[in-house]
């Protein structure tokens, strides 16, 4: 038995160039399967960690998923604003404990800017009820003295190399085209938040009043010609926000969540909606789930294709190995031994390929992880393969072994005579 396996190993080593190509393609498909599974799990993890302790998100009437994507993940756009009057009415509901308005739309070098009240830093929670904490400096207090103060998420500070006291300029909209900058009213970095692994890391926080101030001399999405309000003068204007993008709401008693949701939907002044973050997230997974399944299916098909390659290579090799197999038979190997030799070869190649795929997956998570985090805010975690991943790996190896039974069976059926008497 052991000598047979040794024989299989040495025989495979003789044809290492072809087989290593097969192993390489199996490694690639393993990378695809494992990498996709890792990304899928981590994206879900990242998303479900991003907000906690917020019972409702209130915004202008739109899709539940869209509202949550924009308010929490800064993805997509808002369809409309919400007036502060409406939010005051919602906050007046007896069941509402706290309400934090947020305003989005501006950016700083492609990082989103979130205008909010100082309460945001006390109320916002992520992960398992974890609160935001300042790593350096402090947060703004919402007064006019600290009007042009801003607080950076950890990723913003790190990616752009900002320190406390630095001055930054915000841009209107996405900020890709120059000319739409609020260059006249620079902000001072007064605080940098600790890393959270959520979209907060990629956000520049300013006060709602500051958001009003930088847009005082703007109309229709552009600076008004001939009108300029100096940063100091802006403080003399009424900077109380009139409308914001959305609001995070916490309730005193969470059982009242449906009643409050209904009350928000029934608000007469303007069309509003309130979504439960958890429900909206599940809606999102329902939508994404189809795509995920398709991608996973594709990855699985790639796995099948590379195993087909394995079968083809070993089958094609059989013709050249007629003599080798015939010699084995001649020295006393039974047909089942040949089956074993070939199945072992296939299993070995698959095993090596899967192991190489695992190593490449780990390497690419280590090497590409920081880049993905910075670019897309998706933190890939390097952890021991999950049950899902083990089952995927197991599926690859098992399928590899099963498909190598095909050439094995073929060799089993090839008779001694077939090998020893060359055809004309």
């Amino acid at each position, binding site marked *: 038995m052991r000598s047979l396996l040794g024989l299989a190993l040495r025989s495979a080593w003789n044809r290492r160039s072809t087989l290593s190509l097969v192993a390489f393609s199996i490694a690639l498909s393993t990378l695809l*399967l494992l990498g996709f599974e890792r990304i899928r799990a981590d994206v879900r*993890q990242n998303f*479900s*960690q991003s907000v*906690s*302790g917020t*019972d409702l998100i209130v915004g202008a009437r739109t899709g539940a998923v869209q509202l949550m994507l924009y308010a929490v993940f800064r993805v997509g756009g808002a369809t409309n604003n919400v007036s502060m009057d409406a939010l005051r009415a919602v906050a007046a509901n*007896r*069941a509402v*404990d706290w309400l934090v308005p947020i305003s989005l739309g501006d950016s700083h070098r492609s990082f989103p800017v979130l205008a909010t009240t100082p309460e945001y830093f006390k109320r916002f929670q992520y*992960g*398992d*009820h974890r609160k935001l904490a300042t790593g350096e400096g402090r947060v703004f207090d919402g007064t006019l003295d600290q009007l042009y103060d801003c607080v950076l998420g950890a990723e913003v500070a790190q990616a752009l190399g900002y320190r406390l006291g630095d001055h930054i300029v915000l841009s209107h909209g996405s900020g890709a085209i120059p000319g739409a900058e609020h260059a006249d009213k620079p902000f001072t970095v007064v605080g940098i938040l600790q890393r959270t692994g959520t979209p907060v890391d990629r956000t520049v926080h300013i006060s709602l009043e500051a958001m009003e101030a930088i847009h005082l001399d703007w109309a229709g999405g552009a600076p008004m010609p001939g009108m300029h309000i100096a940063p100091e003068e802006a403080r003399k204007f009424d900077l109380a926000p009139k409308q914001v993008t959305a609001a995070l709401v916490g*309730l*005193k*008693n*969470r*059982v*009242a*969540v*449906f*009643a409050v*949701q*209904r009350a928000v939907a029934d608000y007469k002044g303007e069309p509003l909606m309130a979504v*439960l973050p*958890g*429900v909206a*997230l*599940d*809606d999102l*997974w329902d939508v994404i789930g189809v795509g995920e399944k398709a991608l*996973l299916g594709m990855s*699985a098909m790639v*796995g*099948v294709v590379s*195993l*087909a390659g394995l*079968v083809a290579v070993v*089958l094609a090799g059989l013709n050249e190995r007629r003599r080798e197999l015939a010699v084995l038979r001649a020295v006393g190997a039974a047909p089942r031994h040949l089956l074993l030799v070939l199945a072992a070869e296939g299993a070995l190649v698959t095993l090596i390929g899967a192991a190489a795929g695992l190593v490449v997956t780990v390497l690419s998570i280590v090497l590409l992880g920081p880049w993905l985090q910075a670019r897309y805010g998706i933190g890939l975690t390097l952890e021991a393969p999950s*049950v*899902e991943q083990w*089952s*995927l790996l*197991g*599926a*690859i190896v*098992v*399928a590899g072994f*099963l*498909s190598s*039974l*095909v050439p094995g*069976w*073929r060799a089993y*059926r090839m008779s001694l005579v077939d090998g020893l008497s060359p055809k004309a």
Partner: protein
Amino acid sequence: MKPGKPLIALLAFVAGAVAFLAVWPLSASPMIVFVTAEGETVTPRFDPAAFRDTRWYELGPKDWDPYAQTAALRRDIGSLRDADPRAKELLRGVQEIWTRAPTNPDLDGKAIRIPGYVVPLDRGPLGMSEFLLVPYFGACIHSPPPPSNQILRVSLPAHAKGLKSMDQVWVRGTLRIARSETAHGASAYELSAVTVEPYVR
């Protein structure tokens, strides 16, 4: 290869492919797994006989008539159109009564088993830690919210993985009446769950 052989080879290969494709969806099976804060999987231990099957209507006091207070308005309901302000008034009245819906003191502290739909509240990295259990599908989202005595706030023994919005589950646990003065002065139910299982008849 002789003719016929490729066919069998193909069949064997297809069998391998099917085996391959059959293994990975195993990971997607809807299992509810409890995970502690330390990340360990725990299996809840309990005595199934200790939990009494409870119906949703039992959650209201026996003599509670949710419509008693709107009887006068209801007499006219047949003649009301949807847009009629009085119809809206009626709906608001019913909702007001619903949010004040009384709880059944007999159930306080009882171990019960009740089926319902999941509305997620808190979800951390380890899974769901708290959810609302409601009696009918789409409750709260497509229709006026159910009365407050028809919403159970369920706290879990550990984080539950594999639970999602509108899943149908059996919950076993101890029911408590939380007399909170916050939301409309109404009392509400809290269910400290011992276990949550997928719903089977």
